[in-house]
């Protein structure tokens, strides 16, 4: 059964250099292998969705793309993740520099307990922007690109915690955009939001693809079908030696294909709701 797919066909943009090249990526938490042999390429200015059942490693793979896994003490990465040809896990690469180019939006909206203005100025200030007029411009333009400007322009100095959940999440997207990243990673950005707020974020994502490469993890298949150009389906396989589940990449294809004529039977079962 086919689900209606996004408006842009993935093949339209094929051919440009990939932003990320993952080859045989494996992630361990201590002795536990969370993800096995993931190889894929992520294209520029597209939305790539990671879908799959809980524990399939989709968030783990996402967090490798900007080295957020470094924050987990026991996490260890094998294989390679190339970002515009540079190995992200090269010893000379600084995780903080990586994260300035590859921003992230999290599952739960996490604005700082500061004013709306200060939330947006946080990143630019880290990068040394000090002039008030420059900061004002960045705050305004990033709020506009997150479609939040009209709602908050009169209360930039009030606390970001006073915003609704959907507004907070758009604020987090704006905060991410404020440092002019190259890529935006989104980890289930709508899971804490109601359908209306979700629809607004999805519209926003489509607008942002004119400038940004977006990778989104979602457990909502319809969302992947609606917004993404390409979809990667992950699942878990039981490891025969240890009886523990490891995430594997099953299929990576244009979203329209994943939701109409997937190559793998497991993908079809998942997208038609017969498993997971």
């Amino acid at each position, binding site marked *: 059964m086919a689900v209606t797919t996004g408006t842009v066909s993935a093949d339209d943009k094929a051919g440009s250099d990939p932003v990320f090249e993952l080859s045989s990526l494996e992630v361990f938490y201590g002795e536990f292998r969370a993800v096995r042999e993931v190889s894929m390429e992520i294209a520029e200015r597209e939305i790539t969705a990671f879908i799959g059942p809980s524990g399939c490693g989709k968030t783990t793979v996402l967090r490798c793309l900007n080295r957020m896994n470094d924050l987990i003490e026991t996490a260890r990465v094998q294989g390679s993740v190339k970002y515009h040809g540079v190995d992200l896990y090269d010893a000379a690469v600084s995780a*903080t520099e990586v994260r300035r180019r590859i921003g992230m939006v999290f599952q739960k909206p*996490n604005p*700082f307990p500061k004013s709306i203005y200060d939330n947006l100025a946080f990143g630019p200030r880290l990068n040394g922007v000090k002039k008030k007029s420059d900061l004002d411009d960045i705050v305004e333009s990033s709020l506009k690109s997150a479609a939040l400007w009209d709602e908050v322009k009169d209360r930039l100095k009030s606390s970001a915690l006073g915003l609704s959940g959907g507004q907070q999440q758009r604020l987090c997207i704006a905060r991410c955009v404020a440092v002019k990243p190259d890529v935006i990673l989104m980890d289930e950005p709508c899971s804490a939001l109601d359908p209306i707020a979700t629809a607004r974020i999805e519209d926003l994502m489509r607008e942002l693809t004119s400038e940004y490469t977006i990778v989104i993890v979602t457990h909502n298949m319809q969302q992947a079908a609606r917004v993404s150009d390409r979809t990667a389906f992950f699942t878990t396989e039981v490891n025969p030696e240890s009886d523990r589940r490891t995430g594997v990449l099953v299929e990576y294809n244009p979203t329209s294909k994943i939701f109409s004529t997937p190559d793998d039977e497991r993908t079809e079962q998942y997208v038609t709701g017969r498993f997971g």
Partner: protein
Amino acid sequence: MPLARTPVNLEALRLTGRRAVAETLGRYAFFSAAFFSIIVSGMIVWSLAAETWTFVSQVDYSTLWTDGWFPRRGMYDIKTLVVGSLLTTIVAMLVAVPLGLGAAIYMSEYAKPSVRKVLKPTLEVLAGIPSVVLGFFALTFISPEVVQRLFSGATQFNMLAAGIGVGILTIPLVASVSEDAMRSVPDTLREASYGMGARRVSTVLRVVVPAAVSGLVAALIIAISRAIGETMVVFIAAGATGGSLFSVDVLGPGQTMTAAIASQAAGTDQVVGEGLTFQSLFFVGSLLFLLTLLLNLVADRFVRRVRQKY
């Protein structure tokens, strides 16, 4: 006896016999334990208030503003004691805040769990050192080896050494309360900061500390309250026994409110019977009590604000 089903009726569902007695007894036992501390607090306030009233109603007010605190000679210069307490407390905070807060930041934001597991109990051991030991340490080590080496004019007994001693005593308190405040900052905020490419120092200073600020202020206030109330260290190391001239020189001896009470109360038979000496101690005690009560109330409000935010 195996449990068996019994017919259901009102009698079967009623709490009776030994169970009912135990339930009631338990309730009263725990209530009296809780009530006891309230009673004792009330008694303390009452005992302070009565003698304080005697002092306030009988004292010649001109003797409250003289050259020094010499209660046996009828000189009750309260500013000597307040300034003495203030100076030692300021010195103590200059020691305890940077070191305590620094330790808290390290434990909360930098230390691996394995390191924290060793560091935190060690700090708690420091908190358990009897203050009389620290007073002795302040007098025999801090004063000659630190203060007198740095400042040639310092006397053996001096408020600076006493203040440093009190500071060391309050480091664990500052560290522990500040660490709790920073640990209660949700990790999602740290992730947001790291996700934007912030380094650890920026994350600590621009996200964690501002988010925890009310808890940190509470830590400071609790520490001040503790430092003002500290007796033994200043009694031993700050020097002035019996009485003290008004002084703002931290390199010389001085007397705090607590030390004034302790030194008078130590000379038991002389305290009673000479004018208002005895009652003056209650007056100082009341002042101390009100001051620390006020500080604790303010601190409590700040702590509450931390809890509300997340």
